[in-house]
């Protein structure tokens, strides 16, 4: 059963704020997501090392050290709670036994911190989408599909309360679309291939979550929107192109909620505020504290509508202050403290802080501008006004271009001269695309070299 959203949970931009979601929910240790507090969400990863049977002891030692360090600091700083994300590395999903060894280390440490210091916490489990380890990717069966489902299932049974993934369906064509500046290819990858795969994948994840009484949280179009963002940051593609791609990614990520996910959407989904406006579910976000993993042009603005505040990922290396994950935990907690003080003061103060977050970034980059709360509501409205992901994608793409054009015209956003022609190019491309996605699909199948993707894995016939 899937829901098709036809109205917005938040249609007033002043209600799209951090810490409050129309549909909050409570985790086992009492943390209420979207219920008036922002929680830190910590994620960490290994320093340079191999993961194989012979190094698993060392791998476990690293994770034990990381989780102990971050929880200790969270307790010392009296954080009202912590969300821990375990984003596995590929071999840990390929060999679910290895992934589970670490899940148990994390859960044991979280249990101990609760018993000893009263620290509330919950685990978000993010297995890898390894389906593209074979080329062309095999999306609906095979060892990678099986391993991923097994790790979801076993970690949920062991106590992980939130299930997430950075899924990759459609990426095999989208990467080239990004480097070629091809908006039609991007929309096809996201809303035809991507949306179809999301429906298949999230139907399974939601079913696993239900079986174990845990929450299917949400996905992210990281491999699409963040790849575009990183490429734009490196001046490889225009920022306006990355901004429009970001708007379109919301169509793909929305499918998880249509299938029954309840949030919080995964941290690196910078499109999450648009999804919060549509679904009313709490969302995780990352910004300045994630520059340990990658740069972004919206370090403050990203916090405007968050319900958990994340660092994306940090390596376990030693810094002057201590181990890097512990340092990252401290940064997140201080950011959350500030937001929570505003939440305690009342709606006016929340809006004031939110608007400062927004105003400090929005005029400097189109990718930030497009995610202003008022723009998010506009984009969300564009998405729900259409019946299918493909039609929604084209419409939200054009809406995003209009927003940027208008903002440049009224000088609230400065676009460089070499960016401007891309607005017209993207408009023309989207307008000239076929109205029927099946027509486009057949065009793509006919012109793509065989072996790049398997149409049948997306329910397409050639």
């Amino acid at each position, binding site marked *: 059963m899937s829901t098709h959203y036809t109205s917005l949970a938040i249609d007033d931009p002043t209600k799209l704020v951090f810490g409050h979601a129309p549909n909050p929910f409570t985790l086992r240790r009492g943390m209420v997501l979207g219920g008036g507090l922002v929680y830190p969400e910590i994620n960490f990863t290994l*320093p340079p090392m191999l993961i194989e049977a012979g190094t698993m002891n060392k791998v476990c030692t690293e994770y034990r050290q990381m989780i102990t360090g971050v929880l200790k600091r969270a307790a010392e700083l009296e954080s009202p709670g912590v969300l821990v994300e375990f984003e596995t590395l590929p071999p840990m999903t390929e060999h679910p036994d290895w992934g589970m060894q670490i899940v148990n280390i994390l859960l044991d440490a979280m249990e101990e911190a609760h018993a000893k210091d009263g620290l509330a916490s919950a685990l978000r489990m993010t297995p890898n989408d390894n389906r593209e380890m074979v080329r062309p990717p095999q999306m609906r069966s095979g060892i990678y599909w099986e391993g991923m489902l097994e790790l979801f299932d076993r970690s949920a049974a062991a106590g992980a309360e939130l299930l997430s993934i950075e899924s990759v369906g459609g990426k095999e064509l989208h990467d080239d679309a990004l*480097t070629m500046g091809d908006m039609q290819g991007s929309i096809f990858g996201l809303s035809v291939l991507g949306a179809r795969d999301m429906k298949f994948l999230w139907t399974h994840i939601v079913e696993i979550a239900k079986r174990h009484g845990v929450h299917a949280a949400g996905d992210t179009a990281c491999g699409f929107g963040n790849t575009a963002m990183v490429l734009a940051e490196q001046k490889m*593609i225009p920022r306006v192109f990355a901004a429009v791609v970001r708007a379109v990614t919301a169509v793909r990520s929305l499918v998880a909620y249509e299938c029954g996910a309840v949030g919080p959407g995964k941290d690196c989904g910078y499109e999450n505020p648009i999804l919060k406006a549509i679904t009313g579910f709490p969302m995780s976000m990352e910004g300045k504290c994630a520059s340990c993993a990658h740069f972004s042009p919206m370090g403050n603005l990203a916090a405007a509508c968050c319900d958990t505040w994340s660092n994306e990922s940090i390596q376990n290396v030693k810094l002057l202050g201590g181990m890097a994950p512990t340092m990252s935990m401290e940064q997140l907690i201080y950011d959350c403290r500030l937001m929570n003080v505003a939440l305690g003061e009342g709606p006016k103060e929340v809006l004031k802080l939110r608007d400062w977050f927004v105003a400090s970034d929005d005029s400097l980059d189109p990718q930030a501008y497009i995610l202003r709360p008022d723009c998010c509501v506009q984009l969300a409205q564009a998405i729900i006004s259409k019946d299918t992901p493909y039609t929604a994608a084209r419409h939200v793409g054009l809406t995003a271009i209009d927003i940027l054009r208008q903002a440049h015209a009224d000088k609230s956003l400065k676009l460089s001269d*070499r960016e401007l022609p891309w607005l017209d190019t993207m408009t023309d491309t989207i307008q000239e695309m076929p109205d029927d996605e099946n027509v486009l699909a057949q065009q793509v199948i006919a012109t793509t070299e065989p072996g790049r993707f398997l149409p049948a894995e997306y329910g397409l016939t050639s």
Partner: protein
Amino acid sequence: MANLNALTEFIKSGNRSKATKLTQEALDAGEVPQGILDAMVVGMDVVGERFKCNEIFVPEMLIAARAMKEAMAILEPALVKTGYKPIATAVIGTVQGDLHDIGKNLVSMMWKGASFNVVDLGVNVPAEKFVAAIKEHNATLVGLSALLTTTMPAMQTVMDAIRAEDFVGVKVLIGGAPITQNYADQIGADAFAADAASAVDAARKLLAN
């Protein structure tokens, strides 16, 4: 005489149809194939330089690369007849366990633009496959890319496999977000490049030595 300056311009602007047409005309007019190739490479060098200076984006650079690729398809048979050998044959890939390939693809594209013969092995490439490809294509340049801290050690595995073969004159260049010059030194790679444009300079330098 064909206008080779115009060919350079067509490559720079990525005009595929005009670049291919002029290449054919130049051949028909008896231009020396090497001279035609040089005109194209000059065009791609300018494109690479403009990219380095943030004057153009990757899509514009790729359009130029496509024009060059199509013009090369016309030129290649004539070049081969003259006994022409590319500056080098390079084998490139993302190491085992790693699927990140955008950076690697850009390096590959830039190397092609510099008229290297590039064999791209794709992603998740095991050490044996690198070694087999070096042998099969007589490669003198190897490019390794890794983006994950946990696949960096796979570069060492490839280095060990290459060094175990006693290849003569095979140089290895490595890169990727977590890679540093220190790491290259540590695993015995010949060079490190921080980005795609410097990967061309680094490769040229390695091959000149």
